[in-house]
C-alpha cells in the first residue's frame, strides 16, 4: 500500500507523503478547483497500521456481531464466526484502500492546474498572435516557433460558434434553435479537435516536429480567418464576395499554417502530403460552413413561408434573358403591377 501510495503522491505534489498535498491545497489561492479530496487517510501509514486501527475500532462491533451470530447459527458457529470476522476485516481494508486510490486518482485528473500553464497569456500576446496567424512567413529552412497556448484557440472556437448562430438569425421565422445550436457547437469543436488529431497523426507518420498542443494551437489560430470571412459574408449575402474572401482570407491563414508545417517537416513527399491535407480540409471547411448553413436557413424559409425573395438573387431571374430594351421596362412593370393588382396603361 505504501509503495503504491508514493508514486501517486509524488506525481501530484513532487513530495512523498500526502501531508504536502494537503498544505498546498489549503494555502495557495490558485490551486485545484474541485477540492474533493478525502482527508481521512493519515500520512505515512502503512497497510499494517491501517489494519491495526481498523481492528481496534471494530472490536466492539465484531464482538456484538459474534454474539448475535452465536444465537442464530447453532453448531456451525465456531469456525464460521471466526472466518466471517476475518473476511469482513479484509474486505473493509480493501474497500478503504480502493477508496483512497480512487479519490487520489480523481483529484489528480480533476486538478485543472494541469491546464494552467497553457492559459498564461497577456492580451497583447493574444492580439499579436491573432494578427500573425494571417501572415504567412517565407522562411521554411528552420522550424518556426509555435506558441503552445490554449486560450486563444478556445476563444476562437467559441467565437466561431457564436458567429454561426448569428448567421442563422432572421426575423419572423421559426428557427429550430435547439438542433442548430447543438450542430454549431458540435461542428466547430469537432473540427478543431478532430482535424488537429488527424493532422497530428499524419505528422507522426510523416515525421514532422510538432506536438499535439502545438497542432491544436496552430489550427485554433487558423480559425481566425474563418471567423472573419463568416462574420462578413453572413451579413452581406453576396456569393462573389464570399468567394473573394474565401480565397484571400482563408488562403492567407491556410498558407500560414502550411508554411509552419513545411518548416517542420523534412522531405518533399511528406511535406506535400501533410500540407495538402491540411490545406484541403481547412478551405473545404470554410466552404461547408458558408453553404451548409445557408441552405438550412433557406430550406426552412421556403418550407414555412413560401418562396421568399432572398437578397440580390431572384430579381435577375425574373427578367427574360434576350429581350429588347424597350420591352424590358414594361415586363418589369407588369411583374410589379401584378403584385399590386393594378392594370398597366401601356403594353
Amino acid at each position: 500500500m505504501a509503495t503504491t501510495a508514493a508514486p501517486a503522491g509524488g506525481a501530484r505534489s513532487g513530495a512523498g507523503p500526502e501531508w504536502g498535498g494537503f498544505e498546498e491545497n489549503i494555502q495557495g489561492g490558485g490551486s485545484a478547483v474541485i477540492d474533493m479530496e478525502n482527508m481521512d487517510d493519515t500520512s505515512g501509514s502503512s497497510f499494517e497500521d491501517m489494519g491495526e486501527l481498523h481492528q481496534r475500532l471494530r472490536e466492539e462491533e465484531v464482538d456484538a456481531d459474534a454474539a448475535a451470530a452465536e444465537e442464530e447459527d447453532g453448531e456451525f458457529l465456531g469456525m464460521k464466526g471466526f472466518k466471517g470476522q476475518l473476511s469482513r476485516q479484509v474486505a473493509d481494508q480493501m474497500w478503504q484502500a480502493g477508496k483512497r486510490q480512487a479519490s487520489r486518482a480523481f483529484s489528480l485528473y480533476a486538478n485543472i492546474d494541469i491546464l494552467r500553464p497553457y492559459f498564461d497569456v497577456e492580451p497583447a500576446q493574444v492580439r499579436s498572435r491573432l494578427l500573425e496567424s494571417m501572415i504567412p512567413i517565407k522562411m521554411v529552412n528552420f522550424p518556426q516557433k509555435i506558441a503552445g497556448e490554449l486560450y486563444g484557440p478556445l476563444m476562437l472556437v467559441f467565437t466561431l460558434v457564436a458567429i454561426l448562430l448569428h448567421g442563422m438569425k432572421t426575423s419572423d421565422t421559426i428557427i429550430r434553435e435547439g438542433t442548430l445550436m447543438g450542430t454549431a457547437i458540435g461542428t466547430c469543436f469537432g473540427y478543431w479537435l478532430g482535424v488537429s488529431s488527424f493532422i497530428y497523426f499524419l505528422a507522426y507518420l510523416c515525421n514532422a516536429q510538432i506536438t499535439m498542443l502545438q497542432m491544436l494551437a496552430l489550427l485554433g489560430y487558423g480559425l481566425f480567418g474563418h471567423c472573419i470571412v463568416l462574420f462578413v459574408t453572413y451579413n452581406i449575402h453576396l456569393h462573389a464576395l464570399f468567394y473573394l474572401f474565401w480565397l484571400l482570407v482563408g488562403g492567407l491563414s491556410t498558407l500560414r499554417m502550411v508554411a509552419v508545417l513545411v518548416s517542420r517537416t523534412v522531405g518533399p513527399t511528406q511535406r506535400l502530403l501533410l500540407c495538402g491535407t491540411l490545406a484541403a480540409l481547412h478551405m473545404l471547411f470554410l466552404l461547408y460552413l458558408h453553404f451548409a448553413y445557408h441552405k438550412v436557413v433557406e430550406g426552412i424559409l421556403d418550407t414555412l413561408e413560401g418562396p421568399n425573395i432572398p437578397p440580390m438573387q431572384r430579381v435577375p431571374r425574373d427578367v427574360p434573358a434576350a429581350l429588347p430594351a424597350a420591352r424590358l421596362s414594361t415586363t418589369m412593370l407588369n411583374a410589379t403591377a401584378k403584385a399590386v393588382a393594378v392594370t398597366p396603361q401601356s403594353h
Partner: protein
Amino acid sequence: MAKAAESSGDPGTASPRPLFAGLSDISISQDIPVEGEITIPMRSHIREFDSSTLNESVQNTIMRDLKAVGKKFMHVLYPRKSNTLLRDWDLWGPLILCVTLALMLQRSSIDSEKDGGPQFAEVFVIVWFGAVTITLNSKLLGGNISFFQSLCVLGYCILPLTVAMLVCRLVLLAEPGPINFMVRFFVVIVMFAWSIVASTAFLADSQPPNRKALAIYPVFLFYFVISWMILTFTPQ
C-alpha cells in the same frame, strides 16, 4: 475531536505563516474524516448559526432564502462594486432564472414536428455549461474567485435578460412586423449590455489587473448566445 498536539510548541512563528498552515500540525483522529471545503475570500459568520436553523419552521427558512435571493436581484439590477454576491453566494437565484428562461423559451408549437421538450434542456445545458466553462477559464487565467461564487454571479446576471424575455413575449402579442422586431432588438441589446456591466462589476476585481479583458470576453460571448436565443424566439 481534533486536538492541537504538537503545534503549541512554537507560538512565536504564528504571524508570518499563511492562513491555514497550522492545520497541518493538528492530528486528526480516525473516526472523523476531514473533507475539503470550498474556500471563500471573506469568512462569513453565518456558519456559526447553521446548526440552529435546523429546527425553525419551513416558512422561516423559505422566507429567509427568498429575501436573500431578492436582495441579490437588487444588487444585479443596480450594479455597484460590492461583495454581497460573492460573500454569501447561493445558487437558488440562478436556478430560478434559468428555469424561468427555459420555460419561456419553449416553443408552443402545434404544427412543427419538434415539440417544446428539447428547448428546455438546450437552454439549461447551455446556461450551466457555459457558466462552468467561463468559471474554469477565469480560474485558469489566475483569478482568485471560487468555483461556486463565479457560478452564482454569472447566474444572477442573467436577470436582465430574463426581463428582456418577458418584455419580448409581451411585445410579440402585438402584430408582427419590422417595428416589432426593432423594439425587441433594442430591448435585448440594452439588457445584454446591462448583464455584461453587472457581471463585470462583480467579476473584474477577482482577476489580475492586466487580464481583465481575457476573462470578460467569454462572458460577452455567453450573454450574446443567450440574447440571440431570446431575440430569435417566435411563438407560432
